[in-house]
């Protein structure tokens, strides 16, 4: 589904990704872990098409297309979803409007008829219940005045409704208390399927207690320096990034 080869990206002439390679197949859940400043959020942003990043080398293929040549909205319509680390507050644009506009943009793109209001509301209500989001949220402006946990649950709600092929969740666990983490994890688990892939970008191992990844990658200095199964997350938890990085230094350099 996603094939990243030797990806190099800079901001203001400062290289942030320095030859990153990663292959993600349908049905897989990959966790990308790493210390602050390692390039985790850069990777998520570049995959979703955020402006301001200069592509200096390497390739990204997504379902046999050149991902980096696509506009952010095309990527979204082709099934890529980015869950934001800091979901944006948009006063004056209500949640239900955004959800419906997003879903119908994708359905049009796929040549499917737009959902009418009744079908749409039925779909949304079911998912809202799972995420423990009260109905009044629909009328409120996107993320405006939401707590940190509410914003993250709203991201997952959007993902549940948009049903992406490839979901990239950037530190979806940050700022969550244990109850909210469980709710968010339930939403993520509900999305696992053989034809869908997920990339979980996270700083802590905590989320992975609830969502067991197939692969764990350690990102440092703009490259993946170690990859392994979920036991790698436990190793990181026990030894810290420094311990793992020291052990990997010989390999990476």
């Amino acid at each position: 589904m996603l094939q990243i080869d030797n990806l190099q990206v800079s901001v203001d002439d400062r290289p942030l990704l320095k030859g990153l390679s990663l292959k993600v197949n349908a049905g897989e859940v990959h966790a990308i872990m790493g210390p602050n400043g390692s390039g985790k959020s850069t990777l998520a942003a570049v995959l979703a098409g955020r402006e301001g990043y200069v592509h200096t080398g390497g390739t990204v293929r997504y379902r046999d297309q050149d991902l980096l040549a696509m506009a952010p909205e095309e990527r979204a319509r082709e099934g890529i979803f980015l869950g934001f680390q800091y979901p944006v507050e948009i006063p004056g644009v209500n949640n239900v409007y955004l959800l419906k506009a997003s879903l119908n943009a994708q359905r049009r793109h796929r040549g499917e008829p737009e959902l009418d209001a009744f079908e749409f509301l039925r779909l949304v209500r079911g998912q809202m219940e799972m995420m423990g989001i009260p109905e009044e949220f629909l009328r409120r402006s996107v993320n405006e005045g939401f707590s940190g946990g509410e914003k993250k649950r709203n991201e997952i709600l959007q993902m549940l409704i948009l049903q992406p092929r490839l979901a990239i969740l950037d530190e979806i666990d940050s700022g969550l208390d244990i109850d909210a983490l469980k709710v968010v994890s339930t939403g993520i688990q509900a999305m696992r399927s053989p034809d869908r892939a997920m990339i979980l970008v996270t700083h802590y191992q905590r989320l992975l207690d609830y969502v067991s990844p197939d692969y764990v990658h350690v990102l440092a200095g703009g490259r993946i320096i170690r990859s392994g199964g979920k036991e790698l997350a436990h190793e990181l938890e026990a030894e810290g990034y420094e311990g793992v990085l020291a052990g990997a230094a010989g390999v990476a350099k």
Partner: protein
Amino acid sequence: MAAVRAVRAYLDRDAFGVAPDPALAERGAVHLAAAGLPGAPAESWRHTDPAPLLTRAVAPAPPGAVAPAADVLPRLVGALRRVWVNGQPAPALAEGAPPPGVRLWALEDAADGVGERLSPEHSGFAALNALSWRHGAGLALEAGVKLVEPVHLLWWSQSGDQPWDAHPRLLLRLAAGASATVVIHQAGAAAVDAFLGSVLEVDLAAGAALDLVLVDQQGAQGFALSQVAVHGARDSRLGLWLLDDGAGWVRRELELTLAEPGATLALQGLVRGRGALRVDNQVVVHHRAPQTHSLQQTRAVLQDRARAVFGGGVRVAVDAQGITARQANATLLLSRRAEVITRPALEILADEVQCSHGASVGQLDETALFYLQSRGLDRETARTLLIDAFARAALPDLPVPAVLEWVFGPAEADAFLAATV
């Protein structure tokens, strides 16, 4: 010497016909001849060049203009409507009859009290209107009358081969405890070269409440200069909404007097400027009495070469203790050539007052744009959504939300919500 030429042109012509109030017209003529039209050296004109207005040819509106088809005109469902086309009354387009206790009349038929709140000597343009007005509207509510239906006064500029001008005169009087909603709407076809120089006088007796919406939608050749004077007695309440959308030249001079304790003003404004729009709102709030309160919140969204000026004057009289006066302005600049100027001007002679003002200028939030794009909305749709959201937030308490449709088109999000949730 353009101003002198313009004054002479006004004084010389008689094509307007007989003035409804000859004494008032004479006072206007005298003041205009002596003082001329104000312009650049005056402080309140520092940021708006009156030259395009003063140098244009002047002529009364062509008589017998072809009335526009009724369905072309903006309409408020259920409103009491009166329409003027090219400054001339168009009774065929009127809708609704005033209920008991409410009088809505052609001001030229009974002009008693005109000039009491805004005298011909107030300014050159006040003199010009006093001299030149021929048609207008009066609205009077008896004590305690609550008029539920909004009043829609539409001054519509239809096409004309020649440039023309008209000088509407309006008088609103609410007796004690009365309440009303009035929309004064100056709009027209895109290519009309016209000048509307209006004067509005408002009298609010004790406990009266007026929601007043002033909408200007001028085409690129359109000029509108409105002078507004409001006098608010004890515990009166004025809600004032200023809505500017278009590409023409618009200036408002508002003298809002909170004359007795308990009088309040809440002003919300939105300028949506395109092309070479020039909008200049000069507001002066006079706190003449203790415990009077004013709040001014204005926003602008400016594209192309549009330019907006907000002059926010607050004058607090020496014994007006315990007043509050707040002003805030936020502007979204969408082009390098667009421009906003905000100038609060506070003159405070009392000691126990709370006055504040603030202004912010920004561009569209790139992160919000990306967020919307990452959900599948194309960039243009995302931009429009964010711009409209910013603009709508300028008028959260608008008493006649249908007015927004003149500016934004049908409110898709709201309609959807209403239909479903």
